[in-house]
């Protein structure tokens, strides 16, 4: 068991009585063979059938989402998709440990988490489909836009957590990042700020061993990323990132500590990126198949299924229901992502400022004029071609756009 802790200045200690240990082997409750291996009591909430089955079902649905998204990239329906296949214990276990009022700060690889939080799959894929930068309302889902510049969302989590603390709310902010992200300055600054202000934040590092092609050994010389917590004076936990029972538990404990006023926690979840970085990457250039096969044998979903079967919880009805839900989700994705997304050129100017500047208003009018001229030329070309009947035009699309990007919306 690995929990890194520094003496708590407030004297409150860690609620579960962990001692500072610098053992980098990850905390695990369920070993790679699906057998209980950790110090969980039989009556632990994590082992209750309802909770286990809800977790498993979310993993089945989440994996189906991921596979469908990967397929849709190949079909040209998404511009790009960074898969989290094999990281479902992190993606889902962490989410299920949060409350709806907690905030989540995802990266581009965390669509599965977002869908687990309840975000519409199509809205979750807006960024990767290319019709806008963020498809959902962050306030509604307490989920920040997916962050692309590595670890730059971590200080936002620290700031939001500080704000919640100042407001007297029991909101917790959880930020994801990868092993590569821990090399960024913003990661360091975020952890330091959160610790100094004792902000209720959880920093969850999915150590999936690769930052595109660069392996962990070239990212850090530290024995464990979780050790960095000691330097910031915060709790640090290294957990088996393919053990969803352990992930869910350490995140719940970290959130509980944060809510109780004991400050932030750094969690390192040891997992593996089974797919290439994205569809545009070729993982065979930098890693061996045998390595991938080794990690396949540690698959988080298969592991949980082995355990659930041993307990007799995976009944035919339960499996059928989950598969049906997963296929319904995939069908829905195929149907809705199969359509061309609607984009509106006026969105280019609408949201840059609360009120567009005079210069943006001029530019919006200029673009509208270009598009009107294009539409007119197309209409004329259509008429000349003698098509006459059936020629569609977009003429009039710009009506009412005189200097007002909101006009005709």
């Amino acid at each position, binding site marked *: 068991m690995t929990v890194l802790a520094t003496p708590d200045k407030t004297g409150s200690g860690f609620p579960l009585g962990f001692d500072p240990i610098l053992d980098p082997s990850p905390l695990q409750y369920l070993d790679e063979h699906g057998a209980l291996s950790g110090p969980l009591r039989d009556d632990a909430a994590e082992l209750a059938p309802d909770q286990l089955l809800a977790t498993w079902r979310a993993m089945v649905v989440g994996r189906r989402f991921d596979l469908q998204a990967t397929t849709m990239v190949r079909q040209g329906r998404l511009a790009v998709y960074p898969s989290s296949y094999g990281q479902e214990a992190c993606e889902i276990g962490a989410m299920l440990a949060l409350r709806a009022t907690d*905030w989540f700060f995802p990266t581009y690889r965390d669509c599965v988490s977002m869908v687990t939080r309840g975000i519409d799959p199509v809205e979750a894929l807006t960024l990767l489909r290319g019709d*806008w*930068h*963020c498809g959902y*309302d*962050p*306030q509604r889902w307490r989920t*920040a*836009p997916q962050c692309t*510049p590595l670890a*730059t969302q*971590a*200080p*936002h*989590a*620290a*700031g*939001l*957590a*500080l*704000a*919640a603390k*100042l*407001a007297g709310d029991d*909101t917790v*902010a959880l930020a994801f990042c990868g092993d590569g992200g821990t090399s960024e*300055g*913003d990661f360091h*600054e*975020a952890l*330091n*700020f959160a610790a*100094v202000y004792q902000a209720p934040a959880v920093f969850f590092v999915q150590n999936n061993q690769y930052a595109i092609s660069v392996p962990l050994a070239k990212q850090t010389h530290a024995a464990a990323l979780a050790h960095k917590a000691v330097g910031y004076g915060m709790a640090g936990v290294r957990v088996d990132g393919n053990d969803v029972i352990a992930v869910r538990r350490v995140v719940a404990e970290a959130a509980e500590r944060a809510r109780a006023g004991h400050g932030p926690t750094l969690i390192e979840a040891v997992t593996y990126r089974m797919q290439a970085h994205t569809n545009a990457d070729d993982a065979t250039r930098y890693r061996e198949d045998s390595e991938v096969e080794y990690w396949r044998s540690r698959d988080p979903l298969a592991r949980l299924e082995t355990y659930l079967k041993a307990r007799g919880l995976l009944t035919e009805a339960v499996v059928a229901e989950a598969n049906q839900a997963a296929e319904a989700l995939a069908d829905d994705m195929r149907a809705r992502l199969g359509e061309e997304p609607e984009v509106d050129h006026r*969105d280019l100017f*609408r*949201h*840059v*400022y*609360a009120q567009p*500047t*005079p*210069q943006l208003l001029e530019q919006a009018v200029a673009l509208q004029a270009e598009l009107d001229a294009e539409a007119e030329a197309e209409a004329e070309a259509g008429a000349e071609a003698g098509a006459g009947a059936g020629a569609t035009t977009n003429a009039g699309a710009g009506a009412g756009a005189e200097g007002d990007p909101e006009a005709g919306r």
Partner: protein
Amino acid sequence: MTTTLDTAAQRVRNTEISLAQAVNRALRDAMTADDKVVVFGEDVGVLGGVFRVTDGLTRDFGEQRCFDSPLAEAGIMGTAIGMAMYGFRPVVEMQFDAFAYPAFEQIASHLAKMRNRTRGTLPLPVVVRVPYGGGIGGVEHHSDSSEGYFAATPGLHVVTPATVSDAYTLLRAAIESDDPVIFMEPKRLYWSKDVLETSGPAIGTAAVRRQGTDATLIAYGPTVSTALEAADAAAAEGFDLEVVDLRSIVPFDDETVCESVRKTGRAVVIHEAAGFGGTGAEIAARVSERCFHWLEAPVRRVTGFDIPYPPPKLERHHLPSVDRILDVVASLQWEDR
């Protein structure tokens, strides 16, 4: 008693305060008006900031409203963004112009883009106060004019006061704005004094500081006073110069600037930052595009050289001076007049 109070109020009204005190007053009044306004940054707490701009705020509002941060500008900026996402209105201080550069990624990648990224659902009402500019004998990294980097980043408002009253009113407007505002404070004007007027213009409006008919000097922040001095000196030589104080670089007040240039037919843009790719280049281009048929001479610029900011003993050669402005004014093809 009423008489006494009126007299006291009169005295307060007529008392001159410094530009730094005007910024402090604006912060106080904004913090009083809205408890979501918080101030933080390096040394802004007990010390009151290295320029004493936040003097007494921690004492009077408590550490929850004005607090010191760890020494990390990206962290300050990112923390402010997170707080704004939760409904706060942070006002952060970047201790010196060149110390804001570590925060630039947070500013350019998130602060400027979040509203647009989220189709308006996640606005970031953050004010970034940046003491900037030279003329104070500062060592390297204490005298940059960095407004151009911010002005070239869509999604930000960039304002800079040149008077005590504008320092107050523009900062109040910046804090009330739902958009992020980079508030550039000309540090060599911190100690300049005037009577404070607390009602003032909206962000995005320039001011004509001096009426004139022969040429327009376009300045902002620390160069406004230099431009006014130059206009006074030019008057002695028979030139009647108009001086426009931009106050707001973004949004840019094309209307006021162009109205002035169309009237005078000549324009000189003045700023401390390097000329190449500087804000003055944008202004000269805008004026040329819009006022070409009214111009009697090319739009000229008086700017810092295209060099890293010089050491204190050499900075006088670098900064736009009255003489340099007068020389450029004299070159504006007056033989055609």
